[in-house]
């Protein structure tokens, strides 16, 4: 159901743009107003989410330790899986954010006869890493539209990405990779009954929006070719705040619309995991809570409990009978 809803939504996006630009000719709205608005929503939304999280205290140091703690000199400790100081935390986070360390641990459980066995299962990691890096590279590549002259690193990236010189214009490897990764991430949600069970419309929607974004981009480059000079004039215009909507095919506007939709959707959906991972207290704290006191949250109050003297009063007889010492200090104070 969720998948169907997401698909319908994405198709509706295409129709809206087709009607809006192709028929009604609202190039200014779809080319300038919506993208600016979406970008603003994205920026403000992301900052808002970060402030929202940052304002909430972290009352306890609840690190998930995935390696040996620091104890004795002769015990080899794991700096990356059980960081003891902030520098090691940074290393752990780098590994998590850039290499998806935790996902790399993934296992698949299977019952074979009377045995429960666990096989290494890196497909999810591979799919995720392929998707995220392809997306990131594509994003970087697009900076050639937003800069003049195009910085050399972007040009080099472009050349590497189209290294195989397949077709004209050259086919980008990242386009192939991202399509494959998206397809994998989508199909696994359908194919695995457990995943199908947990998947919501809001899990399929971002996948389909990115599909739309990628496919419209590929179509524009290889099939419904648009006038790149006009496009670049437009994108540079966006950067310098005097944009002029280009007279190019609807496919370009569809591409821009998917991007806008994704940007506006980002801060208010599960896609905020991009920022959230940095705020996760099980990963971003040092496992040194016995050496360095983690300051309590402002709201934390020390508990009231039965003091020794109160307890001694209650059990005095038993204490005396069994020959346990009575603390006279309890009475002196009074």
């Amino acid at each position, binding site marked *: 159901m969720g998948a169907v809803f997401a698909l319908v939504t994405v198709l509706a996006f295409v129709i809206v743009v087709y009607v809006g630009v192709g028929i009604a000719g609202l190039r200014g709205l779809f080319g300038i107003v919506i993208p600016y608005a979406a970008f603003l929503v994205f920026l403000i939304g992301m900052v808002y989410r970060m402030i929202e*999280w940052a304002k909430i205290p972290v009352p306890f140091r609840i690190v998930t330790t995935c390696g040996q703690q620091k104890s004795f000199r002769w015990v080899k400790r794991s700096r990356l899986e059980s960081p003891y100081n902030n520098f090691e935390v940074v290393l752990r986070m780098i590994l998590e954010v850039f290499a998806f360390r935790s996902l790399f641990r993934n296992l698949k459980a299977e019952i074979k006869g009377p045995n*429960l066995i666990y096989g290494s299962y890196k497909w999810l990691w591979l799919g995720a890493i392929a998707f995220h890096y392809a997306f990131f590279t594509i994003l970087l590549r697009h900076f050639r539209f937003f800069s003049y002259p195009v910085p050399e690193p972007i040009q080099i990236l472009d050349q590497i990405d189209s290294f195989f010189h397949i077709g004209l214009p050259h086919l980008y490897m990242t386009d192939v990779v991202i399509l494959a990764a998206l397809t994998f991430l989508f199909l696994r949600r359908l194919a695995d009954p457990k995943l199908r069970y*947990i998947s919501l419309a809001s899990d399929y929607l971002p996948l389909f929006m990115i599909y739309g974004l990628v496919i419209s981009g590929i179509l524009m480059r290889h099939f419904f070719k648009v006038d790149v000079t006009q496009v670049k004039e437009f994108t540079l215009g966006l950067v310098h705040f005097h944009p002029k909507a280009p007279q190019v095919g609807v496919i370009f506007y569809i591409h821009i619309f998917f991007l806008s939709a994704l940007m506006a959707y980002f801060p208010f959906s599960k896609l905020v995991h991009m920022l959230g991972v940095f705020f996760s207290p099980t990963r971003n704290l040092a496992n040194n809570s016995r050496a360095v006191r983690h300051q309590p949250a402002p709201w934390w109050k020390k508990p009231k*409990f039965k003091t020794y003297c109160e307890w001694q009063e209650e059990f005095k007889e038993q204490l005396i009978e069994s020959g346990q010492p009575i603390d006279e200090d309890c009475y002196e104070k009074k």
Partner: protein
Amino acid sequence: MAKLPKPDELIKSIDWTPPEKDWMDDIPPEIKPGRYCYPAKKNIVEEIGFPNPRDWSPLDEDWKLPSNFREIIIEGMKDRLSKYRSFKVFMDICVRCGACADKCHYFLGSGDPKNMPVLRAELLRSIYKGELTWQGKLFGKLAGARKLNEDVIKEWFYYYYQCSECRRCSVFCPYGIDTCEVTMMGRELLHLVGCNINWILEPVRNCFKIGNHIGIPPHTIKEIIEYLLWDIEEVTGVKMEVPFNKKGAEILFVTPSGDYFAEPGIYTMMGYIILFNYLGLDWTMSTYASEGGNFGLFTSHEAMAKINAKIYHEAERLKVRFIIGGECGHMWRVKHQYMDTATGPAPKNLEVPRSPITGTVFEHAKSTKMIHVCEFTADLIAHGKLELDPSRNDKYVVTFHDSCNPSRGMGFFEEPRYILKHVCNNFYDMPENTIREKTFCCGSGSGLNTDEFMEMRMRGGFPRANAVQYVRDKYGVNMLACICAIDRAALPTLMNYWAPEVGVCGVHELVANALVLPHEKTGERPRTLDMRQQPLKPEEEENA
């Protein structure tokens, strides 16, 4: 009590394929016998001072919730979202990638889809979205949101007491989402409307009032320990001592009450006593702070702190220099990650722990001033301060169960293994995906080690037991060592069910078996019995 299926029937009944029906509509849950714990008794709830004390049963149609339970829960949720960043972030960022799905022992053993960590969190997340976010209010089910009602409360109660807060899922989550945090919040919210279980709250009440989970009064503690001292004399020929409430002692020793209450914990207790007497430590136990464990952790952050606070209070009164903590899992989660913040800073009379025998300064505990007894012992062994005869444990082929909390809440892997490798000759680890940070819960953690929960305990313990079976069949393992009192209480039942002939012991039981006392060294009275008063070398006994 529900009838327990036979092990082979139980395995056959496991099906990980979820039903076709949407999980959101699948409420209220069918509350199955053997899979839920009895609710807290009215008088217990009253004594603790928690809301809505009453007589009720989860099998009832009407749970007698307060009429404004919706407002209570939603307000409680808002409050906690503003107090715990973990809760808020974990509610916001899950992408439902499913990496955690088959990491939960309760899911692996039951196949109940709501035991997948992602879905367990979603039970709360859906209410958070539906009641507190505009996205959820606007898009409802499409955004994974729903409204709170009585059936949801029933679902929460059922599934938040089918989570042992073991945090295995958190290891595999790409964002470190920790279901334990979610379950803790779920349970705290349930307390607000009076839905809780007796197996947790009664120990909490006992701790508040008397000083330990079991509710043993001070004179009885002393009696029990005296029995153990007789047993020790029987085994070693030496009359040993346990000082109680001794002011000015160097070390306060705190251990879970399970260690002096029941088998096989008592053998571990004997182990500590023999070790400390062997070393001639200046130590004391307290009959006031007579509980190392902390079922408050399974109740609420406040209850946890209230129980833990007694330890520093007592350490201050007795003017000890530092604290040693016994072998216990959740206790060490509290001592390592919560104690200092919640009830610290440590009283001024405490000093950075320094072993009086080796001089080692435990820098990593310089703030809490509390060390694990395995750290203490491992350091002794490393300095050659213990005369050990590992062959005394030769009748055992030992494996080690990493308890969840010291593993994933502390990173405590090498110290106990180091000890084991020095006190016994036959040690084999279980397969790598089932130990260390990937270790499996005993199936009874977080206050669920009660008899009425037996089927779920055996299901949840299946992954752990299956790995034990593996080393039993491959290496002949017949002893499962662990450093957790709940393990020592729960694992014998689990082994009995899944892996018969495998015993359960604490690490310090094996230490005491191997420890060569001065008079034994001279051959005055060679040791023939182990802590359980069984012959150390059964075959020789037979031959003789």
